[in-house]
């Protein structure tokens, strides 16, 4: 890796040519021990045998224009994070080349290098320096950072006494003030509470507005759709599709979308909770294809076993539209008074009715949350449904809107 000074020959902020990264896997991947080499002296001078290897990224070529905001999307293991790590210079490519024109900052994690024993103020300087800010730059932005984080007096308290929300707020506030020309962000916007998330998204949006080039990795199609003008879809380490966000996200979400009204997990690693299945069914109980009539509604049936006591109220799902934007999120805390009651252990079922005339006709992707002992895990877009135009008001009148509710219109008596 070298740094040189010249002027760009095109308007590209990032030019990637034939980039590839190979990881060695299997036993060879583990660091060896001197002991083993000494025990087998022949080994000492022999290069390790070619190990099994996988290409996490292969032959990726891409031009990213100055001032554009690019979303990297793809399933887990598609190479998104590897690409970001190469561009951030954390790991080296195995082949190919990337040129970045401008000062680069990367945000692969919120709060990298925070030290629990140090105060908030000290961590601003520590974390700011790690992210590549000069002390002078940190000093200039200090007030704005503390202001944005909304920490107040506690800035002089060791961060180990902070709540997780405060910690994240401070960490993001620092990162938001790094002010590079090229910003690489990995899935860090999904932290904090909803209000703060919106503040963060707003901040990123304002950063993107001012001619900065931003590359964002996210599983959240809503984030990608809101922030990015261009999306790049990676699959098995290669670029599968790229172009305007709306169309790439649509193709990404609709991939392999044949009947997917029922989902069950492929692993069983959660000791506290296990899903047997989650399925979307017609509200009238009839079997059918995955198109639900707009005037019928559907229900989502959760079949699961609670193995250990976990904090209540974390069974939730989000419905995303075809463009990746979230339409709604709902949680079993909506059950009302009993919502914070402890879980009943053992196998059980929970239903959620999505009423008729709520969703406009179209395709929808449901993301489910799985409660863990602490926090939860998201299964993104695992259920895919279609609301048909049957009985739809939107279809009948050609109305605009994401939702198509039947609202109450009443007439008062004569005034």
């Amino acid at each position: 890796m070298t740094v040189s000074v010249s002027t760009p020959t095109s308007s590209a902020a990032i030019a990637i040519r034939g980039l590839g990264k190979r990881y060695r896997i299997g036993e060879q991947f583990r660091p060896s021990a001197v002991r083993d080499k000494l025990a087998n002296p022949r080994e000492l001078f022999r290069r390790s045998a070619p190990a099994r290897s996988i290409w996490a990224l292969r032959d990726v070529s891409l031009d990213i224009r100055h001032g554009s905001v690019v979303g990297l999307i793809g399933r887990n293991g598609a190479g998104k994070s590897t690409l970001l790590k190469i561009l951030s210079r954390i790991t080296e490519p195995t082949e190919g080349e990337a040129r970045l024109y401008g000062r680069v900052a990367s945000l692969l994690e919120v709060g990298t290098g925070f030290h629990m024993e140090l105060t908030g103020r000290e961590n601003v300087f520590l974390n700011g320096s790690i992210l590549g800010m000069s002390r002078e730059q940190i000093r200039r932005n200090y007030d704005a950072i503390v202001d944005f984080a909304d920490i107040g007096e506690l800035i002089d308290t060791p961060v180990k006494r902070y709540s997780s929300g405060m910690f994240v707020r401070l960490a993001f506030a620092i990162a938001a003030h790094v002010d590079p020309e090229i910003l690489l962000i990995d899935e860090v916007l999904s932290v904090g509470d909803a209000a703060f998330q919106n503040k963060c998204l707003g901040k990123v949006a304002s950063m993107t507005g001012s001619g900065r080039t931003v590359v964002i990795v996210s599983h959240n199609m809503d984030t990608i759709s809101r922030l990015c003008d261009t999306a790049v879809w990676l699959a098995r380490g290669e670029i599968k599709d790229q172009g305007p966000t709306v169309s790439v996200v649509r193709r990404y979400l609709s991939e392999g979308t044949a009947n997917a009204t029922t989902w069950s997990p492929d692993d069983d690693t959660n000791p506290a909770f296990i899903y047997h299945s989650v399925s979307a069914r017609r509200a009238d109980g009839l079997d059918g294809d995955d198109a639900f009539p707009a005037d019928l509604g559907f229900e989502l049936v959760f079949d699961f076993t609670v193995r250990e006591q976990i904090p209540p109220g974390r069974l939730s799902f989000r419905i995303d539209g075809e463009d990746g934007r979230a339409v709604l999120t709902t949680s079993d805390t909506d059950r009302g008074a009993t919502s914070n009651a402890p879980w009943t252990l053992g196998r059980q079922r929970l239903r959620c009715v999505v009423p008729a005339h709520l969703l406009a006709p179209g395709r929808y992707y449901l993301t489910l949350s799985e409660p863990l002992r602490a926090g939860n895990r998201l299964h993104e877009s695992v259920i895919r449904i279609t609301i048909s135009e049957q009985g739809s008001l939107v279809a009948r009148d050609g109305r605009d809107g994401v939702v198509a509710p039947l609202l109450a219109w009443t007439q008062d008596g004569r005034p």
Partner: protein
Amino acid sequence: MRPVTESNGSVAAEPMPVLVIRPSRGWRALGLRELWAYRELLWIFAWRDLKVRYRQTFLGAVWVMGQPLITMAIFTLIFNRVAHLRASGNVPYSVFVLSGLLLWNFFSASVAHAGNSLIGASYLISKVYFPRLAIPLAATIVDLVDLSVSAVLLAALMIWYRVLPGPEIVLFPVVVLAGAVLATGVGLWCAALNVEYRDVRVLIPFVLQLGMFATPVAYSVDVIPAKYRFLVLLNPMTGIIEAGRATLFGTPVAMEALLSAAIVSPLVLITGIYYYRRMERLFADLL
């Protein structure tokens, strides 16, 4: 009228930094210019470790003072009272041994800290880029601060015993610098080896322990039979400790020892940086 094009190169007010990322092959450049650009981060790392160490516990400071003091007391008891080892020159044995411990402890601590520093910083290495040399170097800086704290202890003991240094003492910082060069070099080797071979971690303290007895910390070079003396003189730490004593107490120092320290230390440092830089590209993947 000629259209203004962007391609004539004069549009940019200031040259834009271009970062070229491609696989590196073989040996890399030392990368000292980049390290210089990141010098603030180096201080911040050192400052963080010092702050945590000296704030967290009152014991932090006590440990820095107490550890050499206790070792000195034990060595004086065993080697001086029981084994009747003598110091060189007219220096009381306890002062003599403390001066050796001061430099040896600095060397040993910074080799151990630098050697293990990458493992401790793996969470940073996998998440953010900065010159990786900053991590072991910051560890050495922290140990330099510890060294100056224990130097106060030595000064106090010298005043107590009325051992007053001559003008040579101005060269003491040079000796410390030489020690820092050697310690950093060995530390870099250990740090990089530690990533490739995980059991180096276990070997480091063991080898350092042996090293202390192979180095004239608790004895002077004179007590070694002339036949084997060259072995001790080859050890670069011998030259550093003996030179340190020469600047403090005006004791004689063997030219061979000085030569060995002057040749070996920079050599170890430069090869250490090269080896470290060569292994560096694997850090994020292996850690």
